[in-house]
Structures are given as C-alpha cells and as structure tokens.
C-alpha cells in the first residue's frame, strides 16, 4: 500500500504514468461529452415552467458541483503537503487551484444568466450565492499566496493552511439552501428521497457531470506534468527527456 503511494508520488514515475493515462481519458471524455450534449440539447424534454431555458442547468450544475469537488481535492492535497510534505501534492495544489476557480466563476456567471429571466435579477445577496462567491475568493487567495511567496515549499505550506481554513465553507455552500431562507431553490438531485427531476432530464445531467470530471482530470494532468518538468528541471531524467526531444525522438 505505502509502496504503491511512494512509487506514484515520485515525480518521475507520475510523469510517465500520467502520460500513458491521458489518451485513454480523452477518449472516454469525448464519448461522455458527445452523449451528454445530445441528451442535454436534443433528447431531454423542455421544462413545464421554464421551457427550454432550463437547459442551462447542464452547464450550471456540473460547474457548481466541480467547484466544490476541486476544492475538496485541494483540501486533500493540502493535508498531504502539511503532514507528509509530499512534493506531488504541492504541485497538485498549484495546478488545480486555477481550474477550480474557473469552475466557480462559470457557476456564478451561468447562475447569473439563469437568474435574470427566471428570478428577475442578476444577483442577490442570499446565502447560496454569497457563499459561492466566498468560494471564488478562497480559490483566488490560494493562487495569490502560491504566487506571492518566492520559496516554493513555504508558499505551498501557507496556501495549504488557507485552503484548509476555507474548507469550512464547503458544507456552508451545500447546506445554505436548507439552513436559511434563500432565493436559490433547495437541492434537486442530492436528497434522500428520489430526485425531483424527470429521469430523461437527470441522466444527461449526471453524464455531463462525469464529462466535467474527466475534463478536470485531463487538464489537471497536463498542468501537473508541465509543473513537474519545471520543478525537476535540474535532474538527470528531465535533462535526458529534453535531449531526446531535441533529437526528435519523442
């Protein structure tokens, strides 16, 4: 078990392993994306109240879920940084923070576009919208700390502490609609009884979420791999790689 983690958390092994994984991930991602787009735009019926406008759910909801999921992934990396000082976790933290921030921004913008025709307003300071905005600021804070501190390892540790403080916000975003009166409606999919969305609308939503997850995995791997090359640029294996690249062997 530990040997497995040690093996794959070595930067060099991770670099080559993820390179082999990426084409497979891209293939599965494209399959999910095409199926979900067909489901979302064509096969799902229009909503009884909102008509075709409800289809923005297929961007808004997966983005919002990803904004929470990426933060939790960052939280895991942060614990690994602080407790075990794992280099790969330091790199991961910096590589996925901008992706998470982008998902959060996408959720906020699509929510705003959805809110104008349905609610009658672009923005309201209710608990759900505000806590999601706080999430964006937490992402930006982590990115800023990583960039502001010159020593990479110290920076990663400071950013990890901020990240773990901010993790308190995750349950607040999720439960805000239940704890307080909000303009944003309650949960549709993640409740204990059956989801209050028609099955033909639900399936593309779930497959689209899988597509978003795969997209996140692919983009993170690219970012992590390029960060690994920079991090290890003085080591022999990276120098060898560059030489082989110059000779056109890759």
């Amino acid at each position, binding site marked *: 078990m530990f040997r497995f983690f040690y093996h794959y958390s070595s930067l060099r092994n991770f670099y080559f392993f993820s390179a082999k994984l990426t084409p497979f991930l891209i293939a599965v991602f494209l399959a999910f994306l095409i199926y979900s787009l067909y489901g979302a735009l064509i096969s799902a019926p229009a909503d*009884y109240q909102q008509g075709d406008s409800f289809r923005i759910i297929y961007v808004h909801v997966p983005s919002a879920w990803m904004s929470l999921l990426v933060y939790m992934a960052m939280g895991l990396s942060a614990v690994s940084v*602080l407790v075990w000082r794992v280099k790969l976790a330091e790199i991961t933290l910096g590589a996925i923070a901008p992706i998470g921030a982008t998902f959060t921004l996408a959720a906020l913008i699509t929510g705003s576009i959805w809110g104008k*025709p349905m*609610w*009658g307003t672009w923005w309201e300071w209710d608990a759900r919208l505000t806590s999601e905005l706080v999430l964006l600021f937490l992402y930006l804070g982590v990115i800023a700390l990583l960039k502001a501190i010159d020593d990479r390892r110290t920076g990663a540790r400071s950013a990890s502490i901020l990240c*773990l403080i901010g993790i308190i916000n995750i349950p607040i975003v999720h439960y805000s609609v239940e*704890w307080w009166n909000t303009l944003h409606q309650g949960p549709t999919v993640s409740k204990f009884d059956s989801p*209050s969305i028609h099955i033909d609308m639900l399936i593309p939503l779930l497959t689209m979420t899988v597509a978003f997850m795969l997209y996140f995995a692919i983009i993170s791997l690219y970012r992590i791999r390029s960060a690994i090359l920079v991090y290890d640029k003085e080591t022999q294996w990276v120098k060898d790689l560059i030489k082989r690249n110059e000779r056109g062997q890759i």
Partner: protein
Amino acid sequence: MMHPMRKKRLQLICLGILGIGIALALILTAFEKNLMYFYSPSEIHAGDAPAKRPFRIGGMVVEGSVVRQAESLGVWFNLTDTANEQMVYFEGILPDLFREGQGIVAKGQMNKSGLFVASEVLAKHDENYMPPEVAEALENVQHNSKVD
C-alpha cells in the same frame, strides 16, 4: 505506524479545523436572523419582521387572490406559507414566472394598515424539473383526489 512528528501535524490540522468550525458555527447561529434572506407571512404575523425598515417577504401567491388595478401596473395579491397570509401591493413589471401558486420573494415595507408595499418582486422557482405532460398528469391526479 505513523511517524510521531507527522501524527502531531495531522492532529494539529484536525484541531484547527474543528476550532474554526465551532467558531464559525457560533457566529452563524448568532447572526441567524440577519442571514435570513426573507421572512415568511407567519413570522410577520408573530411580529418578528422589522416594522420601520424595508425587508423581504417570501411565500406562495394564493390562488385567485391576484387583483390588477385597472389602467395601471398596480397589483394586489396574498402570500401564504400555508399557515398565514399576508397581503402585498406592487406597482411595476412582474417577472415571467409570476403566477398564482408560484413562490415569490418581494422586497418592501409594511404600511400602517398592515399592507406590505413592495418595491421589487422576484420569482422563486422550485427544485422540480419535469416535462409539461408530466406536470399536467400530476395536476390531474391531485385534482381527482380532491374531488373524491
């Protein structure tokens, strides 16, 4: 076995998160009222809503209660939370989703005679998504069970 130093760090992190969590829970409980985006008609009847400053009210538009003023944009309607009702007056353009039975949020102030004068009305859509045919079928079932 975990290295003692690492174990200490992990414990420190857990304690830190727990501490911040408790602090935040206390703050949020203390500010509970201020975090409420709107008041329900029952809370207004109980006298919990501010009397002299604007606030928001949320509830369902009572079926058959919408009265439009002739030759102006004025409209009266009752809001309910199924326990109590509150009469609202609004002059302006209502959102597309405004209809009888719809959940809405209105911002405004109570006047002396107990009428809520709204300056803004927002529609609050529910968490249900379904095709129109299913909605229609559901309505028929409800209607039939009422007749029985």
